[in-house]
């Protein structure tokens, strides 16, 4: 009997595209044709317009087929498939990337512990040198705020306390982002390794991963991996549908079993974090960036990127885009390159009108700003943010007044209620936009809306109320015709 090694993703997105039915058809078809099919179920490579995508081992490396439906199975084994994509490593979309975080994702069994080369080197060089390497690498928090990871870790290492914690923020609530989910489902051990390195460097002996409840597949994969991991004691905790719990202090409150209400800072979590103890809290991608930094050294990492944004960022392309998926690359590509070149423009074929970068609190950019490089400071200079790296493409049918209204509505639904600008401002913002929609004192209400945004921006306790003006004001500034009545 001929043996054939193959892999097919089982991440949530592939499953949503019926990957399990494809797998069943492949197994049945192989059996019928006398082939011993060894089908591994992996994470995704991130090319979702080709999912479910099968990879088959041949004499000349792995060859891909996709997007597959169950009825495509027979032709693959008879060599007549019209879904053949050729050698996967040569695929231009993959070849153009610099994959550090997602290097293994899609190629490995997520439930089998790999070699921990980064952690091994950390143990060789000792905690002080690890802190130095992470600081020198220029790694910044990938959750959105972009705070230097090395400085945060050093703060926790310097604090003296009987118990310290490593907390991973896996509450990936931003629309248009799915990198955390993909990593946890496709390479959970990389995240555990990064957290263990953080624990080693700071003297923290207990870790928590707070995963949103909307990610049941990621929760299962992380639980399976954590049970086999002994370099740090890590517990998986599940959120309960609150967006604001992605804010680090609200997340800590939630972990402690309370309402997810934001804490005033200072004190910072590195001094007074989980259960009052010094705590490093970072996003999934921040921790997952660390093993490569340790393995290859800080200089290797700093050589990638631009300005103060060093290393790689998994850009997530979503919405009305032809090539939706995850593209990990060094900082510095322009927004136009990302949307048109990598994303291939819209999936619908209609012209691009707006691109929201950085989730529900990110600005809407028109194509006239497509020369903006993907970099924390460059986006900030144009009143935007890169956030967690989500890029959502809208075609010319989008109504920007409706999008501005949605931003306020979302903020009202998700506000933790602690500070007035966010709690009341978001409701008033929604009402004011409704008045503009109805043509009621339009100019006065536009002025009022801007004034309200100003108050929310400077007066809110956290980024929810503080950043919701970004989508609202960018819609107003770049698409004023949608507000004219």
């Amino acid at each position, binding site marked *: 009997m001929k043996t054939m090694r193959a892999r097919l993703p089982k991440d*949530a997105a592939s499953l*949503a595209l019926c990957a399990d039915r494809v797998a069943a058809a492949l197994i049945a078809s192989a059996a019928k044709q006398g082939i011993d099919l060894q089908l591994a179920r992996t994470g995704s490579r991130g090319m979702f317009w080709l999912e479910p995508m099968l990879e088959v081992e041949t004499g000349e490396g792995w060859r891909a087929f996709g997007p597959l439906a169950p009825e495509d199975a027979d032709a693959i084994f008879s060599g007549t498939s019209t879904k053949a994509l050729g050698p996967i490593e040569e695929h231009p979309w993959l070849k153009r990337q610099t994959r550090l975080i997602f290097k293994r994702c899609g190629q490995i069994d997520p439930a089998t512990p790999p070699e921990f080369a980064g952690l091994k080197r950390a143990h060789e060089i000792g905690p002080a040198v690890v802190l130095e390497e992470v600081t020198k690498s220029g790694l910044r928090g990938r959750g959105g705020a972009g705070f230097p990871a090395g400085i945060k870790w050093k703060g926790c290492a310097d604090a003296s306390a009987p118990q310290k914690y490593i907390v991973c923020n896996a509450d*990936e609530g931003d629309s*248009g982002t*799915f990198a955390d989910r993909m990593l946890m489902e496709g390479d959970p051990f990389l995240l555990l390794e990064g957290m263990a390195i953080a624990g080693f460097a700071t003297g923290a002996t207990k870790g928590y991963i707070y995963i949103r409840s909307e990610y*049941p597949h990621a929760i299962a994969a992380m639980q399976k991996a954590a049970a086999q991991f002994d370099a740090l004691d890590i517990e998986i905790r599940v959120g309960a549908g*609150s967006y604001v719990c992605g804010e680090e202090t609200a997340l800590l409150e939630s972990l402690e079993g*309370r309402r997810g209400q934001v804490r005033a800072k200072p004190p910072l979590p590195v001094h007074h974090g989980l259960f009052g103890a010094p705590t490093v809290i970072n996003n999934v991608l921040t921790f997952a960036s660390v093993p490569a930094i340790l393995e290859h050294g800080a200089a290797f990492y700093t050589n990638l990127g631009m300005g103060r944004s060093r290393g790689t960022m998994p850009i997530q392309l979503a*919405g009305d885009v032809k090539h939706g998926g995850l593209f990990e690359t060094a900082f510095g590509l322009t927004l136009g390159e990302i949307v048109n070149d990598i994303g291939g423009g819209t999936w619908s074929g209609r012209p691009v009108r707006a691109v929201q970068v950085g989730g529900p609190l990110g600005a809407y950019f028109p194509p006239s700003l497509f020369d903006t490089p993907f970099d924390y400071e460059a986006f900030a200079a144009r009143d935007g943010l890169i956030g967690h790296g*989500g890029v959502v493409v809208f075609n010319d049918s989008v109504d920007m007044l409706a999008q501005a209204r949605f931003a306020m509505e979302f903020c009202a639904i998700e506000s933790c209620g602690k500070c007035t600008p966010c709690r009341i401002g978001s409701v008033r913002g929604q009402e004011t936009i409704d008045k503009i929609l109805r043509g009621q004192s339009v100019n006065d209400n536009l002025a009022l809306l801007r004034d309200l945004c100003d108050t929310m921006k400077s007066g809110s306790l956290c980024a929810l109320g503080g950043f919701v003006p970004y989508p609202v004001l960018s819609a107003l500034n770049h698409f004023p015709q949608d507000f004219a009545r």
Partner: protein
Amino acid sequence: MRAAPASYSDGLAAGIVARFAGVKGGLLPALHEIQATFGFIPRAALKVIAKGFNITEAETYGVVTFYHDFRLDRPHGKHVLKLCRAEACQAVGANALAAHVKQKLGVDWGGTTADGEWTLEPVFCLGLCMIGPSAMIDGDVHGALDANAVDALVQR
């Protein structure tokens, strides 16, 4: 899917609470387990939870009602359809799809059909933003939906 929800008793709730009361920050895991057992958080359980965690009933109520996931005294239908309302899905027609689903089921967000079969819930992002509009039905994910696809799913 889990087995059918158990009917409520203080003893059953107290047993769950006892398993988590000693866990640091164990209230959310306990609430998840109570909801998984009974299908929702029965109001009667608040007293039992408060006692087990040594907090006030008011505080327990505050925590339960803060989180969208916890259904205080609101049993759901036989199936729960969570439809994504977030921006990436909006960009590919989620608003029109939501209007269609509401009409088809005859309910608004949070509502349960008269026959008790379906509860419609909004969800803000399932991380399936590149294959929207997306939805989750009883824990199973579905992508690239349109009106026909959803109709087929709710008619099964």
